[in-house]
């Protein structure tokens, strides 16, 4: 795909959304029977499965901590998740995302409850259309809750970016998809421990001014409430009385 002339025109983005509009979101809980907890989240065409194993015995043994559990997130994209085959296995990008996801969750999970163990969170991107790390984070958060692991808050994330119109004017937009991620001037991954309000993940590619950032963040905060409500709804629906 060539760089488009505009990403925003007549109040509409390339996929017809408004600036503060989310893609169609779907959250399914309990999709992996073998796992302690699992969830599948779709943000438009982006689709991610997360599965939580543990707390369980931790290997390798030198990582064991006598006073708490080690939470490890493993992010990866399946080889068919993108148009050009993604070489399987963690590379620079996957290691980084795994690290930031792990750190985001370590700040909310009550790890001291499970000394000497490990909690593994597998995040697999089945289909990628931008915002995969945030989609994965939302899925992982639901999967952790479903696994019965104690945490102070749900973790909820959204992305926002800076896009342009045909006259060269720029706008902030929430929940970026592939063309906006690729051609937009900036995209930000932003996640909070929703119930406590702490920011647990914040990354940016490209550049924005402070004003633009604050504008995007304001939209993102509003969108986050919507994502959080969907997460809660999905979790509760598992146990809804028929």
């Amino acid at each position, binding site marked *: 795909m060539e760089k488009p002339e505009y990403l925003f025109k007549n109040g509409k983005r390339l996929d017809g959304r408004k600036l503060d509009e989310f893609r169609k979101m779907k959250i399914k809980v309990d999709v992996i029977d073998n796992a*302690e*907890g699992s969830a599948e989240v779709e943000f438009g065409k982006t689709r991610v499965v997360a599965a939580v194993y*543990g*707390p*369980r*015995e931790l290997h390798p043994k030198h990582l064991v901590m*006598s006073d708490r559990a080690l939470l490890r997130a493993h992010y990866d994209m399946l080889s068919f998740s993108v148009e050009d085959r993604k070489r399987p296995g963690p590379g620079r990008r996957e290691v980084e995302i795994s690290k930031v996801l792990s750190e985001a969750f370590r700040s909310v999970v*009550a790890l001291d*409850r*499970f*000394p*000497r*163990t490990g909690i593994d969170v597998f995040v697999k991107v089945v289909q990628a259309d931008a915002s995969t790390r945030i989609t994965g984070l939302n899925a992982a958060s639901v999967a952790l*809750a*479903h*696994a*019965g*692991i*104690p*945490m*102070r*808050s*749900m973790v909820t994330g959204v992305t926002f970016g800076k896009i342009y119109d045909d006259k060269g004017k720029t706008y902030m937009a929430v929940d970026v998809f592939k063309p906006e991620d690729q051609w937009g001037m900036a995209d930000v991954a932003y996640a909070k*421990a*929703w*119930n*406590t309000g702490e920011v647990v993940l914040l990354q940016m590619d490209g550049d924005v001014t402070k004003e633009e950032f604050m504008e995007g963040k304001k939209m993102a905060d509003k969108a986050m409430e919507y994502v959080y409500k969907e*997460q*809660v709804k999905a*979790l*509760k629906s598992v*146990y*809804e*009385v028929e």
Partner: protein
Amino acid sequence: MAKKIVTPGETIVEGMDYLPGDGTYRSGPEIRAEILGLADIRDRLVKVIPLSGRYMPKRDDPVIAIVTGVRYNMWELDINSPYDAMMLAGEATDRFIDLRKEKLSKYFSVGDALICKIIRVDETMSVFVTAKGPGLRKITDGKIIEVEPSKIPRIIGKNASMIKMIKEYTGVKMFVGQNGRIWLDGGNQELAVKVIREIEKKAHTDGLTDTIKEILEKEGEKHGEA
């Protein structure tokens, strides 16, 4: 009394009069859920009853353990938890075991299932169990099924009412371990397993006893007080 399902971080009640119990924490005036579960408010105490999660060993819990290793003076046991349990030689029987003359595998060897009780859990989660005591023994017949440990309280019921009912209608012998393992022997095991799976599926609902009683009355026959 329908209990509300809460998710981690959700505020259950507000006010300094309330006390945060299991599965909750206090944040300023609010008491919030820490796990996914059913909010349970009794007078001032607020708890969340878990709907999922692994078994965490607690002192005095009866469990069904499986021997995974025999050492010189103790056994290693799997208790379906993130932590292995240990049983010292002296906790196996009331008789004196002379370690110089006999090996521990003479008593229990790898693969054996034991009904035992947790006697100690320390802060590093070292777990010790005993097989000495009323009802505690090696399992030699019947079968063991595994259920989600969070559903065990419903399978037992108030004052073991659910177990009594299952025994009464199916005629099985049954032992329910807190760690999610259930031993069954004799009687109509097929029906017992079916009923247990049904309880597991509907553990979070009200009127469970009636639902189960209905199934038992339809498909089972009274075997008298078990």
